[in-house]
């Protein structure tokens, strides 16, 4: 699901570009700290592998077939930070060379598929990789595709692209089917890989960075559900706020109240602002949480 240019509204793509640039920058730092020089060509060639893997069809039934998306597989084999970089490069090459996805929307696509897709895909493996390995890998593939798809859908909705309710739920259903297929492909490929060379697959350590993993996973899932709730039922957040006894309206109104952009109406602007504020908040919490945990562990 590559979003082309001009589908997202300006605040949405601009904010996601900013988020993706900082997230990928962070991953570059982490990866260059962990990575030996010899692994750089490896990452590039593995990117080519993910591209090529799309040619191999997996029979799914009813005459259709699916193919590997790859976020969770890369995370389980190369490690999360290098996997984010490989996926980022793949999405950038697809946007620039193959015109699959927009250039301004690159930040959004990178966030959906490379950052969220890989980190959420790695989360179950990190949590339960040691004890419930098969389930964890399957869940990784499932969550990876599900997160990417619903984030893309949520961003389109926040941008005000009209979609009937039925269409939204149909898309979510299709994402779920694709996500199950991705989970099945990921687990069967990893099992086959372990037969070739067990060293290919990362060793899941017990309780390593468990809090960080939980925090990032929960943050992204919270974000997805929040966005879908906020967008498919326009007053969802406000109703929730009223039920909780807080009037949320002024909070969303004031920061961007005088901000009028072209032909857009203030109703969706408020929604977009709310969504973006949520996204930035989640990102800030995740980064701050990661920093704190990192400091405590090194201390």
């Amino acid at each position, binding site marked *: 699901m590559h979003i*082309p*240019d*001009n*589908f997202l509204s*300006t605040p949405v*793509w601009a904010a996601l570009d900013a988020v993706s640039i900082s997230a*990928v*920058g962070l991953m*570059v730092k982490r990866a*260059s700290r962990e990575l030996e*020089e*010899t692994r*750089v*060509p*490896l*990452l*590039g*060639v*593995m*990117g*080519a*592998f993910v*591209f*090529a*893997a799309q*040619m*191999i069809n*997996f*029979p799914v*039934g009813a005459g259709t077939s699916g193919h590997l998306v790859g976020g969770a597989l890369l995370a389980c084999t190369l490690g999360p930070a290098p996997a984010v*970089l*490989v996926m*980022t*490069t*793949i999405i950038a*090459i697809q*946007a*620039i*060379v*193959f*015109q699959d996805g*927009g*250039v*301004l929307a690159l930040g959004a696509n990178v966030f959906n598929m490379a950052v969220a897709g890989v980190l959420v895909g790695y989360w179950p493996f990190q949590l339960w990789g040691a004890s419930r390995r098969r389930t964890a890998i399957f869940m990784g593939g499932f969550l990876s595709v599900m997160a990417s798809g619903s984030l893309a859908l949520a961003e*389109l909705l926040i941008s005000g*692209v*009209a979609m*009937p309710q039925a*269409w939204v739920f149909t898309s979510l259903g299709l994402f779920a089917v694709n996500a199950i297929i991705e989970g*099945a*492909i990921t687990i*069967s*490929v990893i*099992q*086959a*890989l372990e037969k*070739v060379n067990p060293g*290919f697959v990362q060793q899941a350590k017990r309780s390593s960075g468990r809090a960080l993993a939980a925090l990032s996973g929960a943050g992204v899932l919270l974000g997805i559900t929040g966005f879908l709730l906020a967008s498919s039922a326009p007053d969802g957040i406000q109703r929730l706020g009223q039920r909780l006894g807080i009037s949320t309206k002024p909070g969303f109104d004031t920061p961007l109240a005088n901000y009028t*952009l072209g*032909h857009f109406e203030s109703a969706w602007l408020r929604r977009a602002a709310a969504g973006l504020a949520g996204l930035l908040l989640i990102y800030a919490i995740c980064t701050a949480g990661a920093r704190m945990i990192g400091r405590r562990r090194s201390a």
Partner: protein
Amino acid sequence: MHHVLVDQWSQGASPLHARDPRAKVMVLLIFLVALATTAPDAAVTLTIDAALLVAGILIAGLPPGGLLLRAMAILPFSLTFGLISWLAGDRLRAIGLAEKSYLSTAAVLLLVGTTPLPRLLSGLESMGCPRLLVLLAQFLYRYLFVISEQAQHLRLAAACREGRARKNRRSKFRAAAGALAVLFARSYYRAEGIHQAMLARAFAGRFATLNPLRFRATDGLFTAALAVLLILARLP
């Protein structure tokens, strides 16, 4: 194949090919941002943008029909969403989705059609893109076709072995997983071999180029002129 054709286009020798990749990237970004913030019914702005694009294609000597046809790959997606917007009564957005996403795609195609990817990437590197990502993209693009061909061989071999035997879905699925695992392992070992060979040829962490990038006065003039033009067109 699509990318091979665009690769051929990028080897041309026109004034647009000769411009520094950084100048072209900056102009593309200004073009895309101007387009993205333009209202769908601002006919004058959109006409000027489209005219600039066509002028660029003609100056670059690229086949206009071929490029504009290739940019149509975006249409199934944008027309579907356009149709939904139309049915929802948001006609302005429907037209905007179709025409603006088409113009954006054609503009990106014009950039890659006039700039070889290695030069584009080294331009991006000097514009602040992390070196690790640039290296990764270079390796990825170099070995994309090699690994893809290997995948096709695997697929062909699997089809030959299978013949007319009717296997059930489960075993087919497992066979495909096995093929992917083999492809993974071969790519992995190939990467190790590549790295050894590159070290033996004195690879020191970056690709050397025969003609390094130079941002000339003409490049500055080109960027400034187009930036002013695009912003003036955007203003009304």
